[in-house]
């Protein structure tokens, strides 16, 4: 995997959102939505970011596209740090990086027909010569499994799954390299969700797309990803290839997350690690390891020292987790403190 070309490289990315308040509406604090994360996305792969609400996965996607201006860090796309680009230079890069949202309806103009929606994207990026645009639109419609006869309909005439296909077609219209899918299939009914997932995979094969797939659904993630990042409270807690993450996970949070998902396998033996309490506020994240307030393995060091992402014996190359105790937990030396 490591000899593959790196398409997107995120370095020490921070995204803090100011909170206004106090006597004169000054910035009194920050929501540390994403706090110093780094990862690489290889060309042609699907890298998923998973985590619960508030972990910063969507914020990361938006920051990579500069939909919000990141507070600090580097985002290198194809070797260029796009955070240093001015607006005009950035626009050139936008063609290569597209996003699909959870609710496609919120991001398309309801008064436009599908033809207008798809042509508009091409116009803005000037990606396709004018006289070819019409054919391209029809082609796109068929690529995403919509009939070319539906080309002059408005978004509201389509079902949720079809609208998501329009969203995908629009992203594809400028021939991007990277697609960020932010909970792109989460709002769809299960039978439709499978259709869209298959479509995304087919498109990836056909157009050699790279996906940054943001989702809370670990079933979907297991099916679609090559590698997976687990985030908790603005930090990466574990990053691994799919197989390692599901079968050889090291971080207690990853373990808890996976064990919390209800399984359809009636025979499966369950050792559920029930986490107590809620995720702390990202305004005042816990010192040390951010997971320590809910972690059954937490000790003093967890409360004071921030764990580094690291690889250790028995972990595959490229598999890293951020836990002080992962060796001891794995060997069974370190048992969870029972205080239920």
């Amino acid at each position, binding site marked *: 995997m490591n000899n593959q070309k790196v398409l997107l490289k995120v370095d020490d990315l921070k995204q803090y959102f100011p909170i206004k308040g106090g006597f004169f509406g000054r910035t009194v604090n920050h929501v540390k939505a994403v706090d110093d994360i780094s990862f690489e996305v290889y060309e042609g792969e699907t890298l998923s970011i998973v985590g*619960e*609400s508030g972990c910063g996965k969507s914020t990361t996607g938006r920051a990579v596209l500069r939909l919000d201006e990141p507070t600090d860090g580097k985002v290198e796309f194809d070797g260029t740090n796009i955070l240093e680009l001015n607006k005009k230079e950035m626009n050139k890069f936008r063609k290569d990086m597209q996003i699909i949202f959870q609710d496609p309806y919120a991001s398309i103009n309801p008064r436009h027909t599908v033809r207008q929606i798809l042509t508009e994207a091409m116009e803005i990026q000037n990606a396709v010569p004018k006289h070819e645009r019409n054919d391209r639109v029809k082609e796109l419609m068929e690529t995403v*499994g919509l009939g070319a006869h539906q080309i002059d309909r408005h978004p509201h005439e389509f*079902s949720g*799954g*079809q609208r998501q296909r329009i969203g995908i077609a629009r992203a594809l219209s400028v021939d991007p390299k990277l697609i960020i899918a932010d909970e792109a299939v989460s709002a769809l*009914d*299960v*039978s*439709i*969700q*499978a*259709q869209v*997932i*298959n*479509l995304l*995979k*087919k498109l990836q094969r056909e157009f050699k797309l790279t996906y940054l797939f943001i989702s*809370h659904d*670990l*079933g*979907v*993630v*297991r*099916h*679609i990803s090559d590698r997976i990042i687990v985030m908790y409270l603005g930090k990466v807690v574990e990053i691994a290839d799919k197989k390692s993450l*599901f079968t050889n996970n090291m971080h207690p949070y990853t373990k*808890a*997350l*996976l*064990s*919390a*998902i*209800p*399984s*359809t*396998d*009636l025979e*499966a033996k369950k050792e*559920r690690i*029930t*986490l*107590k309490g*809620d*995720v702390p506020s990202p305004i005042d994240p816990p010192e040390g390891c951010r997971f320590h307030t809910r972690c059954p393995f937490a000790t003093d060091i967890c409360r004071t020292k921030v764990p580094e992402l690291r690889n250790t014996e028995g972990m595959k190359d490229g598999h890293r987790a951020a836990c002080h105790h992962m060796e001891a937990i794995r060997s069974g030396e370190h048992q969870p403190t029972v205080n239920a």
Partner: protein
Amino acid sequence: MTGAPNPSYDNILEIKNLQTSFFTKDLEVKAVDGVSFNIPKGKVLGVVGESGSGKSITSLSILRLIEEPGKIKGGEILFKGENLLDKSEAQMRKIRGNEISMIFQEPMTSLNPTFTVGQQISESFRIHEGLGKKEAKKKSIEMLKLVGIPSPEKRINQYPFELSGGMRQRVMIAIALACNPDLLIADEPTTALDVTIQAQILDLMKELQEKLDMGILLITHDLGVVAETCDYVAVMYCGKVVEFTDKKTLFTEPKHPYTVGLMQSVPQHDQDVDGDLAVIRGSVPSPADMPQGCRFAPRCPFATDLCRNKLPDLETDEEGNQIRCWIYSDEWDGDPEVNVHEQSKSTS
């Protein structure tokens, strides 16, 4: 409690041929179209279906909370042997929140933002048990303790916006269970929650169900939730029950092609799928354009002319499992060796 309890019932709830429709200017949308199922005393029934299946409307019909332009057109809803559709509005009010309670999907919006948590729980005690302010508050604190909310004396004076989603859902459960209901209707109670919080809430519901020995009607689209919490399952499609069986049968040998399709199309976190996911082709038909035969026929890989033209009945087999599909009838005109577990994988 209203009326003398009728000891002759086995099912806490029995729904027979329930029909609820929504009327627009020139269209009748049959949201619930002849639904029947029952919940044995103290058991959990899961109702599974996608949007438009009528599962939520069924649950609202039970409490008779259907609003204009919707109407319950027919059928029977037997609760402890008595038909709720025959009750007056005043009698229904005594049942709601007292003998039958309900919790909803969105904990963020299901609590009144202008009242404290305590006021909202107390209200149930005050309406149904006629308690005074002080006593109601005391019992509300007990309820908060029961649903596992830390420092309930403090929480009771807080407003919903001061609580997290998981906490709010616990408050909803506290409200629902305040008067010790015999039946709890939970409409997608964990769908809006994160998985670790979902696990907490499901655990809590199971624990309280055993403690209080109540029946639960759990509406969900998540087969994993069904597998972990339910005793029986009804699968709904387009306003009809297509399969009704115990959980084990459903997961080991699902019969209806729709059930099978649902199970195969959802990727699971603990199983690998090679290649593409199985899909159910097409999409749910619009209410204005409902197929005349089996509702699932246009999407079913096994459909024959019989399926397309004639609606199958919900048939009960000797073990009490119910199925609405021609494949299992004597009239079946397709391949007699058909295996519903082999569905095609296509991306269309």
